[in-house]
């Protein structure tokens, strides 16, 4: 009997037991669809995380104060307030460094007319747009002169504009607002960036760092210094230059530990990618388990089918079917079941990934390899879980099978 005829016979038998075949395939369909959707979500998440981290700025290095220890107990990052504007200025002298944006953070109440809004306030310098990859949509960013002279000027994000100037039909540029009861002039609006993780990048107010330190946050220390290296090749050099500069600034003895910490963008990126790749592995592992469960479903149904069709097997054997004919028939049936399930599962999985990215707002990316993998796995599942029932069918003795009621 030819292969094609075997396929025809198994299709007929699948069709003859319609509902049962569909239920059997459902296991495979869900398994394959889950694998594909999970991998798509995992890959989509990791690529969106990567693009968010790249969006932080190009060749970015983040200098943060170190941890204080008290009786050998670490007090946590930022427990030392050691960084100063002078440190930032010293770093800026280095050749490997393209821009330096020291920053202080806080929250502020911003009032315009009868409207008020609370947002995060960040004091920084004129290098901020370059270092942090931020663009000004309307107006302009503050200049070094305005920073030096402690001007009361502010650049705001679109979220602030939408909330505070909701009933203003014209541009907010030039409007005077009160930030913690101090009057500021709006000179620019940032281009919308959307949110990255928990932070909404459009919900912030930027003012000159000098103004922030003297009039709003107080103190002499800066929270973080953002530095952009002059090129990606200069990242390591910049890191060394920053470290030696700050150590010199802080008069640290050679034996003393750093009282600051430098993190590069690529460090964050690789950490995030590790997290998301282990998440992808976890999700697809769970999905693979459901595929195995689906395979067991196929085996279960095939075993039932062999028992139920013992008589049919007897008839076929009596009129001349060889062992191999019966084996092939049932094996092809199992593989056909799981392959149809696999193809339908791929369609469902791709569809689910598309729906999730459309409605759920999650990034998904569909690539060919999980689809091929799912297709191969489902046919393999058919073979593995089909062999036992098929062998059982093939080994039936014709007289026993014919006598079976």
């Amino acid at each position, binding site marked *: 009997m030819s292969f094609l*005829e075997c396929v025809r016979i198994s299709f007929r038998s699948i069709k*003859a037991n319609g509902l049962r075949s569909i239920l059997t395939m459902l296991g495979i369909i869900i398994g394959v669809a889950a694998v594909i959707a999970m991998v798509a979500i995992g890959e989509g998440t990791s690529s969106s995380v990567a693009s968010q981290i790249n969006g932080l700025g190009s060749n970015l290095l983040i200098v943060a104060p170190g941890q204080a220890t008290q009786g050998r107990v670490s007090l946590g990052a930022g427990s030392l307030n050691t960084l100063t504007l002078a440190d930032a200025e010293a770093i800026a002298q280095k050749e490997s460094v393209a821009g330096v944006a020291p920053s202080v953070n806080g929250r502020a109440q911003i009032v315009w007319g009868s409207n008020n809004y609370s947002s995060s306030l960040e004091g920084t310098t004129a290098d901020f747009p370059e270092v942090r990859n931020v663009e000004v949509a309307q107006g302009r960013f503050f200049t070094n002169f305005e920073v030096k002279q402690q001007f009361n000027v502010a650049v705001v994000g679109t979220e602030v504009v939408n909330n505070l100037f909701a009933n203003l039909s014209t541009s907010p540029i030039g409007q005077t607002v009160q930030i913690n009861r101090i009057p500021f002039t709006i000179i620019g609006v940032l281009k919308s960036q959307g949110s990255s993780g928990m932070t909404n990048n459009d919900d912030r107010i930027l003012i000159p760092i000098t103004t922030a330190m003297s009039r709003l946050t107080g103190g002499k220390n800066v929270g973080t210094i953002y530095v952009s290296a002059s090129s990606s090749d200069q990242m390591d050099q910049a890191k060394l230059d920053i470290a030696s500069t700050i150590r010199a600034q802080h008069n640290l003895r050679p034996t003393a530990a750093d009282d600051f910490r430098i993190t590069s963008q690529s460090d964050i990126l690789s950490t995030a990618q590790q997290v998301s790749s282990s998440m992808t592995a976890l999700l697809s592992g769970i999905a693979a388990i459901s595929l195995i469960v689906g395979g067991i479903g196929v085996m279960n149904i095939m075993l039932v089918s062999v028992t139920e069709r013992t008589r049919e097997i007897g*008839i*076929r054997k009596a009129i001349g079917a060889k*062992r191999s004919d019966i084996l092939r028939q049932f094996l092809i049936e199992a593989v056909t079941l799981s392959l149809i399930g696999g193809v339908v599962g791929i369609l469902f999985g791709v569809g689910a990934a598309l729906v999730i990215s459309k409605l759920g707002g999650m990034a998904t990316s569909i690539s060919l390899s999980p689809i091929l993998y799912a297709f191969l796995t489902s046919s393999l599942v058919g073979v593995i879980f089909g062999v036992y029932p098929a062998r059982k069918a093939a080994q039936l003795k014709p*007289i026993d099978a014919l006598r079976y009621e």
Partner: protein
Amino acid sequence: MKPVIQIESLKKQYQIGDQEIQALRGVSLTIEEGDFVAIMGPSGSGKSSMMNVIGCLDKPTSGEFYLDGFPVSEAHDDELAEIRNQKIGFVFQNFNLLPRTTAVENVELPLLYGGVSAKERRQRAVQALISVGLAERLNNKPNELSGGQQQRVSIARALVNDPVILLADEPTGALDTKTSEEIMGIFQQLNDAGKTVILVTHEPDIAEYAKRIVRFRDGQIIANELVAERRRVLSEEVRR
């Protein structure tokens, strides 16, 4: 006359639990081409075991069995399958047609395993169904056919490969008297045309359609005699 079945001191033992059952205790039988033999005997006499061996569904424990000159007692499972496919046509008591499968597809089945091309299969299956008077029922499924019609389909299936012997196991067991007569008429017609027919039955009046009756008791042949007053179904009756 050429012998199609030569059986020499055939034995068949079964093991059921600790008990050893001697189903056939040294049977010798020769059936010649064109014969019409009825195998009779009460249940437990060994006639079913005999029929399983002749039908190559089961292998004898010892003894010689030649079917159409081929030594069956030494054949492998796959060879037996091929013999069943090429040389034997089975007709069963309960028809044993594949459910949810049309008459013509049921008849095609032996040709499918015989490796005949799809076009020739269809042609020969239709021809066989016409020869048993089912020209109008080609595409009906077994559950849409009467008992007599189903038995005709299974006769057509048995004939389609032009086998050496036609082996019928209680072919009228599930049929009423009139239908039984029609079916026996078909067997007689086929025998008249030269086909060797072996019939297993426990009904004496069915056995009388045969030319010869072989009686079994306790695993042995106790009688092998020609039928004195053979019953004939007139061909006209069959056609009607």
